[in-house]
């Protein structure tokens, strides 16, 4: 088993999810990471069991007439890894938390 070392990108992604940004695009927006980076990071985090994904209930999606969404959440192991990563990457703490239900501002 290879050691699950968190790269800066992964740590940043993890921090973003922890702060409440549950979708890939939100994460991109808040972290400013390049497009091809966030998703692979998400997959890696998921296969390392640091984040768990959940499909939204079909009924909600139907009511809003759109395909069901997939949410990402930080797991317990992910939280531990994140705490560890914070020691190494101090800038992580500066990532702004999701203040309210307002979506993150589009930056580019």
């Amino acid at each position: 088993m290879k050691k699950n070392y968190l790269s800066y990108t992964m740590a940043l992604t993890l921090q973003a999810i922890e702060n409440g940004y549950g979708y890939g695009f939100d994460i991109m927006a808040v972290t400013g990471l390049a497009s091809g980076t966030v998703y692979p990071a998400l997959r890696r985090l998921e296969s390392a069991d640091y984040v768990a994904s959940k499909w939204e209930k079909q009924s909600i999606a139907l009511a809003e007439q759109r395909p069901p969404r997939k949410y990402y959440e930080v797991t317990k192991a992910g939280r531990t890894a994140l705490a560890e990563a914070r020691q190494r990457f101090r800038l992580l703490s500066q990532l702004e938390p999701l203040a309210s239900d307002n979506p993150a501002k589009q930056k580019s």
Partner: protein
Amino acid sequence: MSRQSKTRPWLWLISFIGVIVPGRVRADWRQEWIAELRYREELLADWEQLNWRTKTNLAWRSASAFWDALWMQTYRWEDAMFQDVRYAIRMMRKAPGFTAVAVLALGLGIGVNTAILSAVNGFVLRPLPVANPEGLITSYWGSKKDANVWGELSYANYEDLRAQNRTFVDLCASREASGGLSVGESGSADDSQRAEVVWGEMVTSNYFDVMGVKPILGRGLLPEENVSPNAHPVVVISQDVWQRKFKSDADVLGKVVYLNGQAFNVVGVMPESFLGATYYLRHSFWAPVMMAQKFGRRPEWRTDRTQTLFEMYGRLKPGVTIAQAEADLNQVVNGLAEQHPEIANTKVQLMTEVDGRFDAATKIIQYGGFMALIVSSLVLLLACANVANLMLARAATRAKEIGTRLAIGAGRGRIVRQLLTESVLLALMGGVLGWALAYWGSGIIRASFPPVPYPIVFDVSPDRYVLKWMMVVSLITGVIFGLAPALLASRTDLIAVIKGAAGQTQKRRRLNLRSTLVVAQVTISIVVLICAGLFIRSLRKALETDPGFNTKNMVTMMINPRLLGYDQNAIWRFFPELQRRLETQPGVRSTAMTDDLPLQAGDLSRGPIVKEGEADPLPNQGFISKCNYVSPKYFETMQTPLVHGRDFTERDNADAPRVVIVNEEFARRFYGGVENAMGRRFRFEQGTSLMEIVGVAKDGLYRSLYEDRQPYMFLPLYQQNHGAVTIVISVQSGSDVGAVTEAVRREIAQIDPRMPVVGVMIGDENMAIPYWGPRVAAGMATTFGVLALVLATMGLYSVMMYVVSQRTREIGIRMALGASVRDVLRMIVSQGMRMVIIGLALGLTGAFALTRLFGSLLLGVGTTDPLTFVGVALLLFAIALLACWIPARRATKVDPLIALRQD
């Protein structure tokens, strides 16, 4: 809904990129991306920013899905496998009979293997639970001349080796000791305070460091506790003692336990996993070696270089090999021998702790274990052949399916992989079944182990190591029995499939392979059956063998007055008193006391034998004879006849002239005859007094059922320091043995209520240990034999059924042209029996070769025992005949008209 009609290139892009995502996860993947892009799109629309710029941005962002899709490629290999597995499960469910038979055959094969491996692992291979167990080195000390006499070394030699060697990080020494352990003052007779007999080790202070174990409480031993005798009564206890005697009291350190009447301060508690250096014993305490006198050692134990008491363990310096260390230690030994002539001609042999577990006598267990593994692997091979055969038959019926798959473009690799997946899946299912069977089997092996009065460690249940091994075996078997059929099947002739004649064109080659497999099965089963036959005969011989004593109506039990602090004079007064009082009990015919019961793995020997008037042999060169210490009436109680002379009496005590009783072989070997030996005198090493031969006992078996006739001596118990003895009671026939046993126990309690009595064995129980080996061997071999027979018969039968089904048309024509029922029967049966006879010939040859390896495990049966060989051959022949005859009879029932109308 107006938005939906707009052009949204980002969603197209996702659909397009999604093509490269592996099928299994594709739908999920697309949905996630689409949902997210939609969400983003909605947000942008809500902010009224959904202009061309943000749209381009969205499209650009969606292109990042490509990287994501690339990442998903890792699922692709898994994906195909998933498909294969799903398909395989479907195929299995379609043919439940085939699946059940195959899984059962494999399960049995893997199960017996796992059970045997667990037993061997539990007994032979499992390393001690210490840090870095592979690096633990143990030593044997022995004579240069006789490679078979290996044993412990003396403390003085250990100290010199430790000080002078240059290759070890450290060396430690230990000696097991039994002790009566109690928490209260052992003077009180309260039942809860009664001393419990436990085993422990006397160890040097660096013992725990060398072993690499840390106490869970307190400390190990200190160097100053290793300096002067009897100065530091401290003890490290096992977790078990801590829990039972101190209720896991965290303040146990500094408290007192009594060992053999002496107070010891508890200084540490060892973890549960650590049971001491003797791999088969459960040790309960570790006391400084300097306290050895409290455990019955004479004061000279430290200085006398011929008192070889200690096991030595060590850790090599980095980069040093065992051979180098051995050379180094032997150099030290040679130096020591110059100063101390008593250890001339000795040497040290080093090996790892696991290798060092087996001396010449117990090697048989190790050897037997590995032999059992060989035979059980044969059974597994047989099961594999069987399943391969089934797979081949199935491949024939699936030729059409496979042909079709090939025809519409599947590669050969793909087909082979599919079929291999099926066989590996079968093997894994067999593995799971085998695992369950192994648990059950190891339970049986464990239950078969006779009761012994020692706290032995005999954990034979499969552990993680065995599980790993079994997984690998399952996978390998899956490949072994799956590969050939899969390769063959993938070579299906497409034209034949399309013409609807699949499975017939290549039946020649397939049948050849199947016949080969049947021959192999017969061969293997013959070998296994012959082994079974030999072991069954061996067990019968063992049960018939006269061991030279009679256990019928015999009760034995063990006591040790020394554990209660009796000194030697008190013990010498206690034993005759006990004997007299027990003999007054109703139903008791006679009683005796002995150091060791014969055949119970006791290992006493004295020597060298020096006849009166002869000079001492060179050090370590004379004849060492096995011996036993016995009380008066021993021969009467054991019902071993004295062919000459007299028994010992109570007057043969420490103050009387030394006497000895020898067996006939001893008399013959040393004095040329029984009469000639009477009254002769001999002695042991220098300084021992001459002993007169006052009696000659009939030859018997002493150490194992397998031994050859050998010289043996009986020395009087009352002329020797002794603590632990086994009391033997011969009960009058007609008396209730159980009641007598109870009466004896009551009587012992009356003499001294504190006296612990252990290891009570009644009648045949006394033979449980010697018969255990032959019984287990016969039981296992029979299981293997029956399995092998069933598997081989199944294989033969299924092939013959297949042959008949393939030849239906031909048989119909023959019968239409006038062939009689007998002709057809003969034709089919002879086709089958041809394979059987080839297999028989090969199997008998193989058995001749293989059984030679079993020679040392067999008792009174030659490895080429003709009865076994002929019997097994006939049995297999008869059963094979039946397995051919049933399909052949079916063939004769073929109605020519129907057969001809086929196709």
